[in-house]
């Protein structure tokens, strides 16, 4: 039987519930990724003798992980119970996995920064920084799984792209911010990370929005559409500025800031897309009805 052309619904009401997350959560996605990628940058800088780049990268990492912890706790309905995140370790819950990654990464990043700034225990600092760097690939990608592991079509159907998108955005924002802060003669790796991350982010975002079928349209409408557009422009222009003018400090500051802002807008675009996708029952009913009615 041919399914009806327009998906039916119950008075046009949403089937799914919108995420209850406020702006804290996309802000967490941004700052957590920034923290992870900065600490990877710091470790590489340490190993290649770029001491001033290393310090700025590890301070960026500490500031970002502190901010991200605040964002996570602030968004909870019962913030005083945040420590319950460590009651269990559940691989079926990316949020549980992420809590444990953060529980390891946060102190490691803190020790790496503190030992450097205070000039004490360099060996301990090196081990801590290595630990943070080892966790950094997980920290920059697990949030993509967290978002995709829901029933919301715009998120779940983007599950092949989201980890790449968030990792690229993390690299771009870390490269951009650290390049803005560090002396240009040491900041080469950061500049390159900003440009490469920005390029990868633009490609991943394009793939996600185009391959997501009819629910990809949320990325072209409403708030998600606006944030997505802003993200593309800031990231693209920032990468160009960094590429062409990044060897001088002003160019690095402008380019790096734009790239980071672009990565932040991308997280907010994804968050808004989830809300818009949950609100439209057609996104749920259409593909599911087609699946059920397809001749087997």
């Amino acid at each position, binding site marked *: 039987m041919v399914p009806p052309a327009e998906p039916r619904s119950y008075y046009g009401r*949403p089937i799914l519930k919108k995420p209850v997350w406020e702006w804290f959560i996309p802000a967490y996605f941004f700052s957590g990724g920034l923290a992870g990628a900065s600490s990877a940058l710091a470790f590489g800088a340490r190993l290649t003798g770029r001491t001033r780049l290393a310090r700025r990268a590890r301070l960026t990492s500490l500031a970002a992980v502190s901010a991200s912890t605040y964002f996570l706790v602030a968004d909870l309905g019962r913030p005083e119970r945040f420590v319950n995140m460590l009651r269990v370790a559940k691989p079926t819950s990316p949020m549980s996995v992420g809590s444990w990654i953060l529980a390891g990464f946060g102190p490691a990043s803190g020790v790496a920064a503190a030992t450097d700034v205070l000039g004490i225990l360099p060996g301990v600092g090196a081990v801590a920084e290595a630990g943070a760097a080892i966790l950094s690939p997980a920290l920059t990608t697990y949030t993509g799984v967290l978002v995709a*592991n829901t029933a919301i079509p715009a998120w779940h159907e983007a599950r092949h792209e989201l980890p790449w998108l968030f990792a690229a955005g993390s690299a771009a924002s870390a490269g951009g911010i650290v390049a803005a802060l560090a002396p240009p003669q040491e900041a080469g790796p950061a500049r390159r990370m900003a440009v490469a991350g920005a390029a990868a982010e633009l490609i991943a975002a394009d793939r996600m929005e185009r391959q997501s079928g009819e629910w990809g349209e949320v990325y072209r409408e409403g708030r998600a559409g606006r944030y997505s557009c802003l993200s593309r422009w800031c990231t693209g222009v920032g990468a160009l500025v960094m590429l062409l003018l990044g060897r001088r400090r002003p160019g690095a500051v402008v380019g790096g800031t734009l790239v980071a802002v672009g990565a932040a807008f991308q997280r907010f675009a994804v968050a808004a897309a989830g809300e818009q996708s949950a609100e439209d029952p057609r996104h749920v009913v259409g593909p*599911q009805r087609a699946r059920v009615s397809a001749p087997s």
Partner: protein
Amino acid sequence: MTVIDPAALSGYDVHPPRVGFFTDTTLCIGCKACEVACKEWNGVPDDGLNWLTSSYDHTGALGANTWRHVAFIEKQAPAGEGPAGEGTAGVQWLMSSDVCKHCTSAACLDVCPTGSLMRTEFGTVVVQQDICNGCGYCVPACPFGVIDRRHDDGRVWKCTLCYDRLKNDLEPACAQACPTKSIQFGPLDELRVRAHDRVAKLHDAGTVDARLYGAGDGDGVGGMGAFFLLLDDPEVYGLPPDPVVTTRDLPDMWLTAGKAAAAFAVGVVAMFVGRRR
């Protein structure tokens, strides 16, 4: 009729048989006694006196403060149709009391990072309110849009299948209150047999649209602890036609993340190789 035993899979060695609801919507008269009984027994807060202009449905949807929701649909139908063979000329009523499905593979339970959402010995899914910290991850994970966060409270709430009543050998409040036995409570395997018999009887009587929703193990959530007999497509009642637990794709997602993480690591290394510049 075999029923998956999620309680055993969750580690209960000895436990009562899995229980749930069979909601036969052909018997529903739309009285909403189930909504009232649920709220009274569980002390569920008032969520407003609203006029929603959706037939007699002024409740709207399931949520943190609505654990039973009666849906009303007025279908245009030729006179003389309906399970009793008669009806108002031109209008067929569809009425159904919606509830948490207590899925065999429950996405809310899978994603809960604190372990607050748990499987009970009865095979049901409940929120432990002393543990929930209101992270809200379960809310977008549910393919039916059941669970939600209570704004003034901060924690998430949903149907408990009257866990406290089950522990005292009582049936859930909604099932007890239902005057037509549209909401039937009991061991899930018995309910499934009863449901299939009922569908066969309805088909013999000419109600060919009768179908079951969530009564088998083969659907995307492994079968529902609360399943339904419907007279039209699920989406007409506000139910997803083919719900799938999101965690089914999780191994694949972790693999994707692993690849992206490896590429990130290689990429960072690449930023440092070569002459100093």
